[in-house]
C-alpha cells in the first residue's frame, strides 16, 4: 500500500479493508468475523466465528484467572480479579526498563503504528457503536501524541544557568508504572486519550477499562498487540473497576494513577489509598475528549531529573 494513501483516512479504510469500503458493515465479511452476533445472522448462511473478549496482559490475551465473566451486548467478557491485576502490574514493571530505555524516535514510531492499526479497525470500532467522528479523533490523537515522543524533552527540559562552574541539565523521565481508570464517557477516544500520553513518554500502564465499554477496549488492545508495542507496555483489564481499582491504588509497585474514569467517592478513596506509597495522582475532571488535550496528561506522569557536573580544565 502506498504511503500516500495512509494520509487519507478514507483511502486508508479502503486500502486496508480490501474487500469493500461499504459502510454497511453487515455485508462485509470482515465485520462478521469480528464477532458481532447480530452481524453473523444478517448475511450469508455461513456461521460466523465469534470473538472471545479476553484480558490483555504482558502482550497475551488470557482469560481471567478467576474464570469469571460478565455479559456485555451478549458477549461474555472477562471479569478481571485482584490476581489478574497483580499479574498486569508485574508485566508492566517488567516492560518498563526496555520501553523507557527505548529511543524517543522508536517510541514515536510505535505509537504511530498504533494509529495505523487503529485505522485498519475503523469498521470494527464503528460496528461496536463508536461514532465515526470519535474514531477519527482517536486515531488522530494517537498521531498527535506519537509526535510528542521526541519533542517533550526539549519543551520541558534543558540547561539551567546555575551560578557556578557546572553543567546543569534537566530532563523529563517517565514516572514508571501508571494505573489508569479509563473514562466511562468515551469508549475509544477517552481510552486513547489516557493511554497514549502515558506510554509515549516511556511509562507502562495497567488500564482498567470502563465497565460498560470492554468490547471497544479489547478491540483497541488487539490493535496494540499488532502494533510493535512490546508486551507489558499496555495491560488492559476488563471488568468492574470499582472492585479492582483499590488494589491498583494501594499496590506498592505502581507509581502513579490516572483517575479519569473514577466517580467522585471512588476517586477520593483511591487517592487516599495511593497516598500510602505517594503515587502521583491525576484527579478526575470533566473532560471534552474532543478538545485539544494540551500537555496535562503528558506532564502528569513525568519526573524531572537534573544532573550536575563540574566544568574545569
Amino acid at each position, binding site marked *: 500500500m502506498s504511503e500516500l494513501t495512509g494520509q487519507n483516512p478514507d483511502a486508508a479504510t479502503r486500502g486496508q479493508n480490501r474487500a469493500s469500503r461499504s459502510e454497511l458493515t453487515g455485508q462485509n465479511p470482515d465485520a462478521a468475523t469480528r464477532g458481532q452476533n447480530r452481524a453473523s445472522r444478517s448475511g450469508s448462511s455461513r456461521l460466523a466465528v465469534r470473538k472471545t473478549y479476553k484480558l490483555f496482559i504482558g502482550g497475551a490475551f488470557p482469560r481471567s484467572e478467576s474464570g469469571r465473566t460478565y455479559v456485555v451486548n451478549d458477549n461474555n467478557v472477562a471479569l478481571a480479579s485482584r490476581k489478574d491485576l497483580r499479574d498486569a502490574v508485574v508485566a508492566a514493571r517488567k516492560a518498563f526498563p526496555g520501553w523507557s530505555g527505548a529511543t524517543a524516535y522508536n517510541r514515536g514510531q510505535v505509537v504511530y503504528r498504533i494509529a495505523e492499526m487503529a485505522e485498519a479497525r475503523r469498521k470494527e470500532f464503528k460496528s461496536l457503536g463508536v461514532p465515526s467522528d470519535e474514531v477519527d479523533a482517536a486515531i488522530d490523537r494517537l498521531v498527535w501524541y506519537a509526535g510528542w515522543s521526541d519533542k517533550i524533552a526539549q519543551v520541558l527540559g534543558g540547561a539551567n544557568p546555575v*551560578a557556578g562552574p557546572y553543567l546543569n541539565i534537566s530532563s523529563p523521565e517517565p514516572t514508571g508504572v501508571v494505573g489508569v481508570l479509563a473514562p466511562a464517557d468515551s469508549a475509544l477516544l477517552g481510552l486513547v486519550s489516557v493511554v497514549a500520553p502515558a506510554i509515549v513518554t516511556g511509562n507502562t500502564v495497567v488500564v482498567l477499562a470502563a465497565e460498560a465499554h470492554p468490547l471497544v477496549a479489547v478491540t483497541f488492545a488487539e490493535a496494540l498487540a499488532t502494533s510493535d508495542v512490546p508486551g507489558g507496555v499496555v495491560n488492559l483489564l476488563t471488568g468492574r473497576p470499582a472492585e479492582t481499582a483499590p488494589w491498583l491504588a494501594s499496590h506498592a509497585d505502581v507509581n502513579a494513577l490516572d483517575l479519569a474514569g473514577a466517580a*467522585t467517592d471512588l476517586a477520593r478513596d483511591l487517592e487516599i489509598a495511593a497516598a500510602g506509597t505517594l503515587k502521583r495522582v491525576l484527579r478526575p475532571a470533566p473532560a471534552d475528549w474532543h478538545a485539544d488535550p494540551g500537555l496535562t496528561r503528558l506532564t502528569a506522569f513525568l519526573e524531572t531529573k537534573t544532573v*550536575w557536573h563540574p566544568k574545569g580544565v
Partner: protein
Amino acid sequence: MAAFEYAPAPESRSVVEIKPSYGLFIDGDFTSPRDGGVIKTVNPATEEILSEVAEAGEADVDRAVAAARAAFANVWGPMPGAERAKYLFRIARLIQERARELAVLETLDNGKPIKESRDVDVPLVAAHFFYYAGWADKLGHAGFGPAPRALGVAAQVIPWNFPLLMLAWKIAPALAAGNTVVLKPAETTPLTALLFAEICRQAELPAGVVNIVTGAGATGRYLVSHPDVNKVAFTGSTGVGREIARAVAGTSKKLTLELGGKAANIVFDDAPISQAVEGIVNGIFFNQGHVCCAGSRLLVQEPIADELIDALKRRMSQLRVGDPLDKNTDVGAINSAAQLARITELSAAGAEEGAERWEPDCELPSQGYWFRPTLFTGVSQSHRIAQEEIFGPVLSVLTFRTPAEAIEKANNTPYGLSAGIWTEKGSRILAVADKLRAGVVWANTFNKFDPTSPFGGYKESGYGREGGRHGLEAYLDV
C-alpha cells in the same frame, strides 16, 4: 597530631536581637495567639532557651488564611506582575543587606555551622527571591500557556534543617506566581521565619500576602486541611507527607511534597580519590547530615574500597565538631534532643545488625546535642542503616563489583531524591545517571543547589519540583 592548633574564632551574636517572645505574623502584624500556647525555642548547641514563640491554634490559622484570602482577592491577585516582581526584588535586597544577622540567627536556632549559614543558606535565600522575582511579570512565557493563573492561598509547612532556605523555596515562587501564603516553620526553628516577617514589613509588602504561623504538628495539620487553602506545599518526612496526601485527597488542592531520601553516592574504581573523599564528606556531614538529599549510602567499587575508606577516615579525623558560631567549625549541633535520640537509636541498630562502627576521636561539648561523624562499614542492603533515613552524620558503606550492581543497589530503596556518581569516565557518568531513579544526580560533585535548578524526588521522596521554571508549576493553575 595537628601542626597548628586552631584558635577559637566565634562569630559575634551581637548583630542579632532576639526578643523574649514572638507573636504570630498575621495580616501584616505580630499578634497574640487566640487559643494557643507557647513553644520555647532552644539553641541546640548550648540548650539555652532563645525565645518563646506562639503556638497557633485553629482560630489563629483561620485568621491567617482569611488574611491571605483577602490579600489574594484585593491586592496581590489583581496587582500587575511587574509590581509583584519589584516587591520580591526588594525582599531579595533586604536579605542581602541583613545577611549576617540572618546567618547568625539561623546558626543559633538551628545549630548549623556559621560557615554554612553564612556561605550557603543565606546567599541561596537571597538568590531564590531574586530569581523568582524576575518570573513574576514573565509567567506567560514560562510554558504554561499565555496567561497562567495563580491558585490562591498556599499553605506551606517547612522543616527545621534549612529553616530560611526552605522558606525561600516555598514563598518566592508562590508570590511570584501571584499567590498569597500562610507558612508554618518547624517548631524547633521558628526564629528566622519571624525575622523574615520583619523583612516583609520593611519591604512594605502588603498586609496578608505573607503570614507566618508558628506551632507544632497540630498547627500544621490544621493548616493543610483548612478548606480555604488552594495549594499545599510540604517539605519534611515521608511519614507526614503520606498523612498530608491523605488529608488533601478528594479536594481540589494542589499538592507538592519534598520528602525523605537515602541517596547512594557511587564511587567507581577510576574516581579521583581525594576529590571523591571531599564529596563524600560534604555529602553526608554537611549540615550534620540533616539533609534530605544527603549521600547517606556510600557505594564503593571493591578494588578501591580499602584505600577510599582509609582516606575517608583520615579526612573525618580532621573535621572540627563544636561551637556552630565558630568560623572553623565543620560539623555543628544536632538540631534537637528528639533527633539526637533517633540518630542514636538507628546507629545502635547498625552495630547490632552486624555493621562495623567507626568514629573519629573528637571531643564533644558537654552541653547541647552532639553526635560524632560516624562511619559504618560492612553494611548490607537489608540493614536498617541502609534502608531508613537517619537524618544525621552517619554514613553507611556498601561495596559493589559491576556498574549494573551499583545501579541495582542505588535504586533498591523506596526513596528517589538524589544520587552521586564519581568516575573520570564521561560515558559512564551519562549511562549511570540515566538509570538512577532520582530527581537530582550530582556527578563528581555533591550537595550543590541553585535557584535555577529544579529539585525534587522520584518515588516516595515526593512529587513536584522546587526551583527553576519547573518550580512555578506548583503554584499555577495548570
